[in-house]
């Protein structure tokens, strides 16, 4: 594989304001590189530097083995095409005209290339599904159509590299996906090197071979999405709470952004034991944990999505074997955790024979018990769970809550 783009010790400043400092990037031919990072970290500046739209302060950019400063505009436009974020014109060019402009760098000093150029433009427009739009005015098209036309223009430019500067930030989710699938197709079928500045980290992780995370004028980490999508980098760079988990459908790591502004609750070291399972506790476990309560959980089976949440949040829990009844050891662990807690919260988890013990255990407890009111069927034990629940309802320390918000209100009042 050839180094198609090499950036060495690159620094860029606008006046006194430093934008990029000592950046080193080497990109191989045919790679799809996603560039991510918060606003103002110089992502778009990097794109401008590669196309020589701004002066660089220090360092060197080499494209296809040639110093970027020695490449003329015309020659560079034969190697690098750019798809900008959003593109508006006030003039009535139709889509065909716009795509034909991509042929400009190839047209100087040549005669009779019109037929050839027409074919190339047609092919690019067919590829991007825009040929049927060729006579429509560009300024009357939707955002998704425009972006496809601009990609067709980049294809018609017949370059080895396509740079994309936040190509999807004005598009709805359908068109975001469409644009990125199209770009990936260019990489796979035509071995075009793709360098894309992307805002959406999950999209970036899904489509890129490699991610470069920029922060504070510099590269924080450069590696595979597997390496880069990690809380230790992302939470620091984006300054927020997040969960990193594996998206099982797409088999990629993904980020679930949680919050930037914290709820302020005087928690007084309250310890809450949560009885949940089957995903019924994901939401409240995270919320309690991040609010600063000491949270425990049990009994949950290994592999259960609540169990995974506990693992991500490092919540202590009594765990059982996958797809099994609660065994003696797990039951004892759970008893201990309940004994240590100040109160118990029961989610609207359904009960079957496997987890009935999680309900029974509460009969002997004198801790305050809050239970989310159940609105649908929850008893899969032919009446056993309901009869236990009736007994619990008669206990003085038992009360229902309608919403988790009510529970948060009660415990933050401290009674």
């Amino acid at each position: 594989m050839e180094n198609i783009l090499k950036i060495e010790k690159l620094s860029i400043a606008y006046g006194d304001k430093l934008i990029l400092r000592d950046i080193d990037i080497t990109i191989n031919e045919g790679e799809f590189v996603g560039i991510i990072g918060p606003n103002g970290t110089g992502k778009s500046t990097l794109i401008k530097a590669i196309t020589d739209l701004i002066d660089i302060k220090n360092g060197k950019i080499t494209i296809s083995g040639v110093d970027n400063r020695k490449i003329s505009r015309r020659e560079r436009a034969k190697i690098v095409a750019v798809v900008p974020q959003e593109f508006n014109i006030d003039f009535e060019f139709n889509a065909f005209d716009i795509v034909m402009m991509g042929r400009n760098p190839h047209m100087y000093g040549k005669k009779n290339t019109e037929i050839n150029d027409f074919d190339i433009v047609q092919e690019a427009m067919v590829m991007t599904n825009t040929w049927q739009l060729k006579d429509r005015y560009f300024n009357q098209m939707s955002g998704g159509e425009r972006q496809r036309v601009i990609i067709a223009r980049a294809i018609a430019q017949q370059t080895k590299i396509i740079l994309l500067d936040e190509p999807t930030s004005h598009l709805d989710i359908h068109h975001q996906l469409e644009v990125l699938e199209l770009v990936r197709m260019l990489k796979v079928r035509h071995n075009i090197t793709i360098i894309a500045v992307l805002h959406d980290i999950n999209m970036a992780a899904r489509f890129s071979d490699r991610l470069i995370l920029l922060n504070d004028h510099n590269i924080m980490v450069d590696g595979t999405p597997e390496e880069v999508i990690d809380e230790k980098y992302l939470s620091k760079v984006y300054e927020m709470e997040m969960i990193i988990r594996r998206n099982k459908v797409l088999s990629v790591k993904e980020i679930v952004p949680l919050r930037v502004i914290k709820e302020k609750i005087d928690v007084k070291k309250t310890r809450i034991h949560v009885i949940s399972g089957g995903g019924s506790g994901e939401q409240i476990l995270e919320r309690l944990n991040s609010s600063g309560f000491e949270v425990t959980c049990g009994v949950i089976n290994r592999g259960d999505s609540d169990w995974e949440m506990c693992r991500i949040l490092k919540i202590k829990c009594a765990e059982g074997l996958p797809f099994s009844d609660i065994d003696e050891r797990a039951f004892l662990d759970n008893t201990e955790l309940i004994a240590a807690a100040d109160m118990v919260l029961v989610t609207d988890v359904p009960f079957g024979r496997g987890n009935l013990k999680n309900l029974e255990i509460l009969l002997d407890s004198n801790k305050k018990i809050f239970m989310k009111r159940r609105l649908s069927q929850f008893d899969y034990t032919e009446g056993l769970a309901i009869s236990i629940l009736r007994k619990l309802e008669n206990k003085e320390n038992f009360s229902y809550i309608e919403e988790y918000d009510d529970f948060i209100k009660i415990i933050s009042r401290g009674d």
Partner: protein
Amino acid sequence: MKKLSTKNLIISASLLSLAAILLSTTIGIADISITQTIKILASKILRLDFDLGNLKASTITIIWLIRFPRVLLAFFVGGALAICGVSYQGIFKNPMADPFILGVSSGAALGATIGIITKVQFDLFGINAISVLAFAGAVASLFIVYNISKIGNKVPVTTLLLSGIAIGQFLSALISLSMIFSNDLHKIIFWTMGSFNAKSWNQLVMVVPYAIIGFVIIYSSHREMDIMLLGEDTASQLGVDTEKLKKKILVTTALVTAAAVSVTGIIGFVGLIIPHIVRIITGPKHKVLLPFSFVFGGLFMIACDTIARSLMSQEIPVGIITAIFGGPFFIYLLRERKGGGI
């Protein structure tokens, strides 16, 4: 409005031009028929041996030495100003740009004012002192504006436009100042309103080469000027050397404008509205826009000049006519096209 096909446009534009030139050469205070006009022109241009014996010598003089060169001059000046307007609107991406936006007109006017006040008398290739000074003033003002705006190797458009306006205002103030202390107020005012009065072959010979060579140079960049409409950054990324293109267009249009203005005075509005009107008909592509702006600019100017010299016994400066008739027509077009692009 539906866009006409290029072929139909070429045919109708050529026929219109021919008819307009003939008609306006015929129209005037001295009563001359169209057949007489055709006869005189045919015998002079095509060297056809028509019998002109039954025509008065004064008729031949009026047609051949006064009206015909004047109509041609109007055509070329109108055309030249229109393509300069197209070029500026294109490279500045600004619909309000006209050939005078960089202070060229004020420079020319100051040069002419100096000529009128000092009453210098000299002749350069048959061109009088006022025209020569106006040309020099126009070129000098562009030179100043360009160098003020230049930062390193680049000329940012916004700086260029703003310093053009600033220098223009400054020079206009100087003109006003000189007018206060001059007895030739009337002459200066008339000069700044533009006129084709008493213009003949000498002036035509001065303007035509600039108009034609200027057109050829600008036209050679028609594809790049299309791309400039997408913005300078995008144009660069599509392989256009934007700084070089800007310089090329600026210098060319400034010289063409200077040549036109120095001969006729300042005729406003043509360079602003003709490009817009033609763009509505042809679309924004310079390949078609430039030639048709030239033709329609020329036709519009012929029409305005014909009105200017035949409406009243006293000739009205043509700059007044272009604005009086062009303004409402342009506003009508704008309202017709509400909501559309430029």
